């Protein structure tokens, strides 16, 4: 069986041009995209091995001499294909602000404190069950200059590789109940409400560790399905 990548499912993505997010205005193409068939080039993609990832890359609270400030959390979930099959050996990379809403990045000048015990970058290679698991701290909201009094909801950036180059996904994970959702043009660039909500993690008491850390579940669904599904196709 080989991989197929239906185009219809990409309707979940935001458009390139979303004027409320002002930086898209000069960076979205104006010419129509040119439709091309999927060749061996598109249907293959990078393959990772364990050598690229260390166990310590998954715990963002132990990468420095001391412990970072903030609310310790566990973020776990599965990387899945469109049929719900786990994607093994998927490289998951994440980066985030610290608990005060400050990125370690040199270009972030938001006047909130840096944390000498927190960088905010991690990576994980999924196992055969497609599962990843990070320990980190909950990132803070932070201001940006898109419009007056603009604040991003707390989020964690995720970068994920799947079975083909077209499965590649960069997205953001949000936290349930964030009061900033209605005001965020990046979150609201996703046209469909149900699709937006797929980027909101679910609090999970079963993942939560007593006296230690709150737990969140966040599954990630990538493009791609087997050419011959073993189940009946979904009726839409």
């Amino acid at each position: 069986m080989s991989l197929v990548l239906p185009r219809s499912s990409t309707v979940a993505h935001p458009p390139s041009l979303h004027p409320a997010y002002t930086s898209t205005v000069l960076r979205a193409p104006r010419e129509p995209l040119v439709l091309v068939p999927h060749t061996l080039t598109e249907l293959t993609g990078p393959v990772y091995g364990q050598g690229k990832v260390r166990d310590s890359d998954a715990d963002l609270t132990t990468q420095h001499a001391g412990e970072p400030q903030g609310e310790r959390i566990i973020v776990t979930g599965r990387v899945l294909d469109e049929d719900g099959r786990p994607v093994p050996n998927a490289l998951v990379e994440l980066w985030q602000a610290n608990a005060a809403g400050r990125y370690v990045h040199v270009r972030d000048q938001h006047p909130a404190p840096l944390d000498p015990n927190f960088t905010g970058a991690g990576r994980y290679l999924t196992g055969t069950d497609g599962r990843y698991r990070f320990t980190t701290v909950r990132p803070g909201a932070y201001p940006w200059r898109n419009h007056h009094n603009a604040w991003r909801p707390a989020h964690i950036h995720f970068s994920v590789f799947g079975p083909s180059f077209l499965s590649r996904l960069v997205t953001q994970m949000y936290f349930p109940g964030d009061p900033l959702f209605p005001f965020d043009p990046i979150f609201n660039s996703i046209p469909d409400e149900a699709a937006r909500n797929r980027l909101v993690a679910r609090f999970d008491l079963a993942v939560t560790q007593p006296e230690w850390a709150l737990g969140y579940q966040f599954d990630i669904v990538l493009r791609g399905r087997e050419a011959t599904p073993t189940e009946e196709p979904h009726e839409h």
Partner: protein
Amino acid sequence: MSTETAEARPDGLSPSQTVGPFFHYGLTPGAAYGHVPVSVDGQVAAPGTPSEPIVLTGRVVDGAGDPVPDAMLEIWQADSDGRYAHPDDGRPRASNSFTGFGRSDTTAEGVYRFTTIKPGRVPGPGGREQAPHVLVAVFGRGMLKQLFTRIYFDDEASNAEDPILALVPAGRRPTLIARRDGDTFTLDIRLQGGDETVFFDV
């Protein structure tokens, strides 16, 4: 029943979101964040990889013609025999050291750069061979999802019979063809406006 065994078909894909302005320490740390391990960089081919070493470079510019200093390019390509380091390309390869994948951020001047090898021709639709090419995904602040394009090479006669280039209006094909100068191939990526790069619906 635990959630681990509750298998259900997902309702749809996870939607894309921008990499934002602060991806560098997570994805392309380089020297500025030397304590962060690097998973991928712009060195696609190790020195000594069989075939012709090349540099692939250019600028990313926006609709005003200004350089984009916070973009990121990822490339995927075959080896010099036109074979992909992937299980779905079952043909034997001369070397297992070439992964075919690289990642480069852009400088303050909007410049990306890869050190790689010239790819060979690869199979295409209907049994027609494709001309040597590199698949490119462009990410950036202000880009809600990646844009896909290709880089072809101006010294390849086979461009004339490439089945993908044939689908691009002739007047726009030059936006996909890098120009050779020594071992360096240069191609600018114009996100919008005059001479806008061709991006593909894949």
